[in-house]
């Protein structure tokens, strides 16, 4: 089956005021099939938001895609015309970012903001626009869609605003949606509703998704596969169940051990020290030699200092960039 998205050897860097180049993504490769949900798991500084921005070339002025290919439905987005790119953004690829309160225009009713997205990409008459807007609102708001459509963003809750953004993202029936921490500012019950909504939309519209987050528990039962980012490199990719229950990369392992267990069975463990990852994430503006996780790794070996590990296959569809799995 042809993948909907193929990212090959992507290198992205930022230039600082003093002129030094700071690599943010190094040699990122992954593939996304139609209707598949890929969870991108990474903490601050891992490059996850840079990845979201790079896919649609929405990097800030000091960001540069140095090399690589981003093949969307077979076409390299880095080499298409500006018009084609504009048609793709919002049209073929939907985007949902983190802060619903700053992504919506404060003085335009949300229904109109959705209609604007539709008319930017499709030439439709007014009645069709209105109908499509209603349908989209009904898809994301099970009740009260009409009233919400006539509201202003400040009259809506965080969860409702996020649903409006989701409606905007799927308005033009894209085949791929990129969501960067879409539930970050939401309450747990609202968060759960939004995750369920994503699942429903994926089923209804065969939507592929890239769901970027720093919280592994959001990806359980939502993502088909997980890609773990550390210091701009892909540490591990594999089926969600495998990565979460038996992580192979020492970073993934350490990260999952940091989480306070869900309703710990052993009450003696309450108020015990949580497992932490020693040290701090690396300073990416310094030249890298060897594996970037090595200084913090409890399983490091001599070879780890010398060169960066390439991805090794540990089982079907499960790859880990760690010398533990070499040969």
């Amino acid at each position, binding site marked *: 089956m042809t993948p909907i998205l193929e990212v090959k050897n992507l290198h992205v860097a930022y230039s600082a005021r003093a002129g030094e180049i700071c690599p943010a993504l190094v040699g990122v490769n992954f593939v996304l099939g139609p209707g598949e949900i890929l969870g991108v798991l990474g903490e601050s500084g891992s490059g996850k938001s840079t990845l979201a921005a790079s896919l649609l070339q929405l990097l800030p002025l000091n960001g540069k895609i140095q090399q690589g290919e981003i093949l969307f439905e077979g076409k390299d987005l880095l080499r298409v015309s500006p018009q084609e790119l504009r048609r793709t953004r919002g049209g073929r690829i939907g985007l949902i970012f983190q802060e619903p309160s700053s992504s919506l225009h404060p003085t335009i009713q949300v229904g109109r903001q959705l209609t604007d997205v539709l008319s930017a990409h499709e030439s439709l008459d007014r009645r069709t626009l209105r109908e499509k807007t209603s349908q989209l609102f009904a898809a994301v708001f099970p009740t009260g869609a009409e009233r919400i459509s006539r509201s202003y963003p400040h009259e809506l809750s965080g969860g409702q605003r996020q649903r409006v953004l989701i409606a905007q993202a799927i308005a033009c029936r894209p085949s791929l949606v990129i969501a960067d921490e879409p539930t970050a500012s939401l309450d747990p019950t609202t968060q759960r509703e939004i995750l369920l909504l994503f699942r429903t939309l994926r089923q209804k519209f065969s939507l592929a998704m890239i769901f970027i987050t720093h919280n592994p528990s959001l990806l*359980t039962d939502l993502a088909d596969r997980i890609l773990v980012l550390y210091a701009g490199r892909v540490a591990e990719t594999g089926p969600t169940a495998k990565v979460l229950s038996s992580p192979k990369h020492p970073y993934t392992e350490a990260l999952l051990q940091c989480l306070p267990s869900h*309703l710990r069975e052993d009450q003696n463990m309450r108020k015990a020290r949580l497992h932490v990852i020693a040290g701090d994430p690396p300073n990416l503006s310094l030249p890298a030699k060897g594996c970037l996780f090595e200084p913090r790794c409890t399983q490091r070996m001599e070879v780890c200092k010398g060169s960066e590990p390439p991805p090794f296959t540990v089982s079907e569809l499960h790859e880990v960039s760690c010398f533990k799995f070499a040969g």
Partner: protein
Amino acid sequence: MQPLLRVDKLVKHYAAGRSAGSRDKLVALDGVSLSIAPQSTLALIGESGSGKSTLALCIACLEHPTSGSIWFEGIDVAALHENQQRKFRPRIQLVFQDPARSLNPRWTALEIASEPLIVRQDTSKQERENKALELLDCVAIPRRLASQRAHELSGGQKQRLAIARALALEPKLIILDEALSALDCSVQAQISNLLLELQSSFGLTYLFITHDFAMAAHLADQIAVMDRGRIVESGPAENVLRSPSHQVTRSLLAATLPITETPGVGLEL
């Protein structure tokens, strides 16, 4: 043992109408009662709009309740005049959710940690700086970062600094309002460990406001659940988690489970 803090039927209304003479009111707290034993942790769980932050502000004497009492070390601080309340504020400190907003980004770590000490008019600048450096040590911020501006610190370092600032006046009670929510998971673990260490070293009492049940389960001795201005359920942490009796508690707990068709089935991390 006398509780360190006892809140009794606390009510807080805000005026809500559009016109000046309107009698519409928003009821933020609708008769809240709770108590916290010394050197223990009470986790207060609730969604947005439940009133948790309003309760925090009232307890910290930053908001005047409409009615009810707040007994702190045996004294009703809500009934005191402003001048007398001022004496209690250092004993109750707050740490907020987003250190990027609660710390002045242009101040250095040293300036931020030493600022509360200015309230103690009997200290010299040198004494304040020395004390501030000790505070940075307590929260494991390396001294070489003392002259860094807040915006140059990482999220975890900023939150440690916010905690250092809260410790400056030797409080008895620290209210942590979603203090871990904005942090990465591995950083949450570090700060959680730090909070436990500080509690044991300094005999601190915590009111830990959160919507993260997993973290509450880990840190709290007691849990109280809030909904629409009221405490709907409270008790020892393991009781509330294992056998929640109120619908709100149950739905909040269910929300932490992985999304599946049948709750109870799914991966546990």
